[in-house]
């Protein structure tokens, strides 16, 4: 069985005993979605990479404390959310790097015309996300992009499921309004 085929629980057990190959498999399994979340919530590729890197190094140092009561993914997203919030507090706002994201959308699109339209749609979403208060942005991203349950979002962000529902409801409303206005 290769590391990439093992369950999260088996990889955590091995990593806790010092198996760096098992931890590398955790990094490659969960890191890309952690960085996507960080990129969308921070609006910067560099900050997203820093937050993801800090979160995963912290996970390695503290893996003894992870006892499996929560899912590994939830724990890792808790770490990256905290790092992203720290960065947001410490750093000046940076311009959204729309062009990079649009390039990737273009590459995935069926044809050039659709790609241009879709790229613009994603830019509009990112701009709208940037206007949302942090808890609304975080809950919306974890629910709609990462597919987490309300309970998982609550654990990740340290809030009750009632608060999650409230932030999500308000966030969805504002985003839909902004997208309605987009032309």
């Amino acid at each position, binding site marked *: 069985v290769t590391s990439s085929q093992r*369950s999260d629980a088996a990889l955590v*057990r*091995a990593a806790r005993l*010092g198996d760096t190959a098992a931890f590398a498999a955790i990094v490659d399994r969960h890191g890309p979605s952690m960085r996507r979340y960080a990129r969308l919530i921070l609006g910067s590729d560099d900050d997203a990479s820093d937050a993801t890197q800090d979160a995963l190094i912290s996970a*390695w140092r503290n893996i003894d404390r992870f006892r499996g009561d929560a899912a590994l993914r939830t724990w890792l997203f808790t770490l990256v959310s905290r790092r992203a919030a720290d960065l947001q507090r410490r750093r000046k706002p940076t311009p959204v790097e729309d062009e990079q994201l649009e390039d990737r959308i273009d590459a995935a699109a069926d044809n050039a015309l659709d790609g241009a339209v879709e790229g613009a749609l994603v830019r509009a979403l990112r701009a709208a996300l940037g206007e949302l208060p942090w808890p609304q942005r975080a809950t919306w991203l974890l629910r709609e992009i990462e597919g987490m349950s309300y309970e998982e979002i609550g654990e990740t962000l340290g809030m009750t499921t009632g608060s999650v529902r409230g932030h999500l409801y308000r966030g969805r409303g504002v985003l839909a309004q902004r997208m309605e206005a987009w032309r």
Partner: protein
Amino acid sequence: MTEGPERLERAAQLVREQPPDTQDWETTSRAIMRSVRASVRPGRQLLLPLTDDRGSATYVNERVLRRALQGAFSRRTDCALSDAVLDIDDSHLTRVAVEVVGRYDTDLLRLAEECRALVRATLRETLGAPGADGPDPALGRPAVDPALGRELEAVTVDVEMVDVELDDPNR
């Protein structure tokens, strides 16, 4: 307001389906693993009763032993090591307590005995004590002080089955 929610859903779908930037991720992943490998966790030292005529000492960090135990258990299909706690008194190993996750259909008592034997074998192999056939200088293995063998035999090995899983717990 009619188009807003549809556009929002379409934009979210595009983001979800966005292909990962694998080349960029590899750079980040490599940087993470460099830091991980560089951040060695502190560990206690085990003093082995191996000396030369000048009284030089030989130590093994407990990380080596924990890693060896993890490797030994990872080759089984009916159990996995969940944790290994070493009691070290004045640099001497006195107890190894292992937490083990077993496979659901396994006889846990028999498994616990096998785990205990596996821990003892790993201690001997890793710390270089003579096996049943004694040391083999022809293989470049030093003839160790019999005190090491006796010391390892005196180590208590406690096994706790902490969980069971339906499939191979190492997968």
